[in-house]
């Protein structure tokens, strides 16, 4: 299409041959991006003057956060622990449940196309649902508190680990699987002894990675009342008590950093 409107340039080489050089697509892309930016500016009422005039307000808030309020530490401790425990339970259950779902979504394990389609659609819908939205729905069903947050994390982990796991199952070597089937094992047994050991290291590594991300997500789930440290953030920001917010953020940063370091160490060992 593009080449028809802007025909390729003909270059005659010194030896008489002609070669076609396709026109660069960069200007077109540039115009599209520029047009998109312009439309977005109109849509979102982006106003540079406001930014220049009131931009310092943002740094006023950051200034208030430093130094953080150290005496706030004892009241942070329990919600922070709740947040971590929510992520641990949600991630563990989610990655366990993801095994059967991934089995159902792998085309080389299940020959029935309908089952595969349904399992994949289920995973896609769960994955595209933002965690905060599923947490919000969960608070309506399970009440305010840590249970709703755990359910939201469980659903996200199930979708994320499930998707990566079924891709790994499809890429696994089927040689041992076929050999075991031929000596009379059922498909599930053969999966357990031939495929599962192959995907296990990657599966554990993905679950750990997902857990890392979940600690960050869990931190904001409290905003919709799903338990954990987000509640404190919400209160602090609502009352403009920025020194406490600073303390919460500092503790959060330290926790996330520690968990990432530990998890990275184990993930390197696994692969």
């Amino acid at each position, binding site marked *: 299409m593009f080449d028809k409107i802007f025909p390729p340039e003909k270059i005659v080489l010194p030896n008489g041959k002609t070669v076609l050089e396709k026109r660069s697509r960069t200007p077109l892309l540039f115009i599209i991006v520029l047009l998109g930016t312009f439309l977005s500016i109109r849509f979102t009422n982006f106003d540079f003057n406001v930014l220049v005039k009131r931009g310092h307000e*943002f740094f006023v808030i950051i200034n208030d956060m430093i130094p953080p309020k150290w005496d706030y530490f004892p009241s942070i401790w329990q919600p922070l622990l709740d947040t971590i425990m929510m992520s641990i*339970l949600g991630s563990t259950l989610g990655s366990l449940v993801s095994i059967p779902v991934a089995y159902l979504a792998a085309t080389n394990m299940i020959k029935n196309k309908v089952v595969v389609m349904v399992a994949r659609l289920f995973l896609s819908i769960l994955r595209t649902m*933002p965690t905060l939205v599923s947490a919000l729905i969960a608070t309506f*069903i399970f009440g305010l508190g840590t249970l709703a947050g755990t359910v939201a994390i469980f659903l996200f982990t199930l979708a994320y680990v499930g998707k990566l796991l079924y891709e790994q199952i499809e890429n696994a070597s089927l040689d041992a699987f076929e050999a075991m089937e031929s000596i009379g094992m059922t498909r599930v047994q053969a999966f357990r002894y031939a495929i599962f050991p192959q995907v296990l290291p990657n599966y554990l590594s993905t679950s750990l990675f997902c857990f890392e991300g979940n600690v*960050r997500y869990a*931190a*904001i789930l409290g905003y919709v009342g799903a338990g954990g440290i*987000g509640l404190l953030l919400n209160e602090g920001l609502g009352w403009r008590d920025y020194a406490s917010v600073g303390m919460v953020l500092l503790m959060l*940063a330290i926790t996330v950093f520690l968990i990432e370091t530990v998890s990275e160490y184990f993930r390197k060992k696994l692969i």
Partner: protein
Amino acid sequence: MNAIEKQLYAKPRSNVYIYIISAILIGLIIGSVFVIDFESMGNSGWTIAKNILLGIVTPDLDLLLNFTTQGVMYLLLETIAIAFLGTIIGVLLAIPLAFLSASNVVPKPISWITRLLLIVIRTIPSLVYGLMLIRVTGPGPFAGVLTIAIVSIGMLAKLFVDAIEDLDTSIFESMTSIGCTTFEKIRFGIIPQLTAMFLSIGIYRFDMNLREASILGLVGAGGIGAPLIFAMNSYRWNEVGSILIGLVILILIVEIWSNNMRNKLVRG
């Protein structure tokens, strides 16, 4: 004992290590069960769950296919605009920061300080930025754009740094030897190596930003999140259904498009 068994027993044993790690893990998981309060689940839970499912299955089609400023289509467009502009600003801010933290471009101390700054920017949750920026611009999509821009800096810069540190420097040496000026070295030596990677990272981040933008409405920063939470709080599950369906379809389409584009870019 045959050869296979011998080989099996020759494998290094680290049982104590495995037992200790397993014990810690099981302890953590069991401990976490006690933290979760199962008491809070009310009896009305099942009725609400049923209503939600009914609402999602029978969405409010008028709202879904409505093109006025209240309709789902307009809100989705606004969400896309927030994510798009946010990504563009984020990329523009992240590029200089990425060069400042690449250890093969600037001296070590500067790269360390920039990296620390990036880690701090990354750990603060997006909702916190949203709430802080609303104080600057007032509620509305403008705050959403700024939030998305700041949130994306952290990850974009981190991925950009990896691309910059992988630059093939032997090209510069050969360009110097044939007498290229600094500008020519940047134009023909650096930019062609980086554009594909940078574009692919930018598209990936746009995909993620769309999800972020859809929840920022919860704090009043524009997009589809605010109508969603209003509809939920007033138990209008049909509206919730139509908003969620629109959102899920949009995110799925963008995800498929982004995967295709990135595959094309990486393969050249």
